[in-house]
């Protein structure tokens, strides 16, 4: 729980900022959220010593409390997240996904507290999305994020929206424990603190700027980040563990989407300096939709993206998305249960090691949702990026009750 303490302080602070219209403003509270049971079964025995072959079971609880004043000027969000897991002690963890106060005036928006911020357009990878740390222990797809403490000031103009972020505290990436699957050959050093390039360590103040707008059928985003890298490198400790190290980086980002007829053309690029040599990376491609397939209610989307990354991974943080092709199909049933299937793969066209992903979900009744996820790693030979995870194929079933 030590990790979420600073967030709790910020949230408590945010909750007591007085509202100038308090007497006149009743406002509304909305309470929601969900609890879920999740079972993850690995189809092969473990590869590395100390890893468990047991069925991986989790209980997830995430209530949501949202306040909005009647004139929509003041908002408070409070969304804790808790996961209890039977196999990996590191996977039993808590976070404040959101805990902020927000003021929305005519000219400016001000937000203080923990929040999530999403930048970018592509499907297979989220290159420019850098504000929030990846909550990697939740899912290897890197689409879960930790709440980031921040002060954000934004202004909406006719020519676009400008946002500035000051982030006083760094969230370290969550990593698999020694018992857990989906980890490198050597276990992560999850007991001691990570090392930092900044002498202020996790209290280094990071900053970011973002511009976002649209012109006709184009959506454009420009971003700049200066601060602690969200991606770590790893040093081997005397005990033979991988200890994360977070350096300082500067990163420019560009995201672009062109929407026309049934096509969505998407592109993201970054340029980064710090933690090794300067490098550029990009991901781009399209999503094309066939609506009402064969005169049914089905919509079929086809996705294709290419991932390039110019980094030297002997000095910079490791990436698997360096020369990879992503292809997927998305089937939306357009039924009352909002059923949907996404199936796809990412293949490195040099080494042929690939990651296969299947996701399916549907609603049961009004309040339950059931979701299947299956992930397979194919053709990962020794020395290739996915080799350490080669026996970590799994099938996961999740039942969530929304309230």
């Amino acid at each position, binding site marked *: 729980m030590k990790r979420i303490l600073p967030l709790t302080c910020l949230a408590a602070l945010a909750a007591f900022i007085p509202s100038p219209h308090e007497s006149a403003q009743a406002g509304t509270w909305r309470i*929601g959220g*969900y609890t879920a049971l999740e079972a993850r079964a690995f189809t092969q025995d473990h590869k590395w010593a100390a890893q468990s072959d047991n069925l991986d079971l989790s209980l997830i609880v995430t209530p949501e409390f*949202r306040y909005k004043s009647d004139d929509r000027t003041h*908002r408070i969000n409070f969304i804790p997240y808790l996961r209890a897991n039977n196999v990996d002690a590191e996977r039993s963890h808590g976070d404040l996904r959101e805990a902020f106060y*927000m003021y*929305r005036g*005519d000219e400016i*928006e001000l937000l203080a507290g923990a929040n*999530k*911020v*999403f930048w*970018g*357009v592509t*499907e297979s990878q989220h290159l420019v999305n850098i504000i929030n740390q990846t909550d990697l222990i939740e899912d290897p*797809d890197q*689409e879960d*994020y930790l709440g980031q403490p921040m002060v954000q000031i*934004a202004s*909406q103009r006719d020519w*676009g*929206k400008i946002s500035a972020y000051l982030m006083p505290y760094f969230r370290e990436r969550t990593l698999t424990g020694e018992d857990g699957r989906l980890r490198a050959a050597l276990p992560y050093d999850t007991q001691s603190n990570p090392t930092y390039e900044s002498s202020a360590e996790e209290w280094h103040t990071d900053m970011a700027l973002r511009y*976002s*707008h*649209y012109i006709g*059928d184009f*959506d454009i985003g420009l971003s700049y980040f200066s601060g602690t890298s969200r991606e770590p490198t790893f040093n081997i400790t005397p005990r033979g563990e991988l200890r994360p190290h977070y350096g300082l980086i500067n990163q420019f980002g560009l995201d672009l*989407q062109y*929407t*026309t*007829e*049934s*096509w*969505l053309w998407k592109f993201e690029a970054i340029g980064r300096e710090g933690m090794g040599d300067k490098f550029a990376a990009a991901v781009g491609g399209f999503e094309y*939709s066939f*609506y*009402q397939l064969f005169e049914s*209610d089905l*919509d079929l*989307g086809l996705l294709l993206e290419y991932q390039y990354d110019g980094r030297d991974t002997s000095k910079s943080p490791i990436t698997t998305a360096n020369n990879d092709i992503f292809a997927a199909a*998305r089937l*939306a049933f*357009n*039924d*009352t*249960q*909002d059923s*949907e*299937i*996404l199936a796809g793969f990412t293949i490195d066209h040099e080494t042929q090691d690939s990651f296969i992903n299947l*996701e*399916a*979900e549907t*609603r049961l009744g*009004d*309040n339950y*949702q059931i*979701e299947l996820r299956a992930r397979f790693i194919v053709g990962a030979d020794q020395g290739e990026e996915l080799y350490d995870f080669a026996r970590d194929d799994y099938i996961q079933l999740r039942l*969530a009750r*929304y*309230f």
Partner: protein
Amino acid sequence: MTHHAKLSTLLRSAVLSGCFIFSLAALPAYAMSDEEKGYEIAKKSDLSDSGFKDHKVSMKMILRNAQGQETTRDMRFSVKEVPNMDKGDKSLIIFDAPADIAGMALLSHTNILEADHQWLLFPESGKVARISSKNKSGSFAGSEFAFEDFTSQELNKYKYKFLRQEACPNVPSLTCDVVERFPLYERSGYSRQIGWTDTQDFQTRKIEFYDRKNDLLKTLDFLKYKKYDDKYWRVHLMKMDNHQTKKSTDLVYDAYSFDNGLDDKDFVKGVLGTLY
């Protein structure tokens, strides 16, 4: 990321605002062809609803399958009128139920000649994404309403033909003009529609939709009209029956609120991230 398409499916409609334009103003006395009569009157009625500035309304969508089993969706709408006739209105839809899609929001900028611009907010990730507005005849949110039933109500998207006058369906005390209209836009699921519009308040009372094979597909009944500010008629119950699948969808509207002081800043892409 399966949420992406699911959300877009659910929210791709534009203005579910309850103001269908199918009404005829008083018939001109001089001789016109039935086509001219239909067009001129539809044009007049198109203008009759203008000037409301903005409105907000909450709505429940009740979906019924052939066995009569019901599922519901709750949503809130804000609509801002755009005075420029070359532009359509701007609208924002926020879902409240089912709970797993609560907070999902769609912003639409309707255009007459070009494609509409639409953005979705995915509340779980905070992602705001532009989506395609090409799908016309697909189902809106799993309902018996098609996207085009909401998004293609502009005058010049049809040609018209006056048929006859008769007692109004649903309100026999009123007289209705019966007008046939033929979609001019691409990818419509309909060959034609027949609409009943009363001659007193110029409100649509019923529409029949014929599929591409010219078979009767759906009937839409407009019930529970109320007048606001002595000027603006709004429907509060729309019942769509699909005669081919035997499924039906009701749209049940709460009270509208007009002139809420909404401006363009409440309908820009950048506002989506501040909603939930």
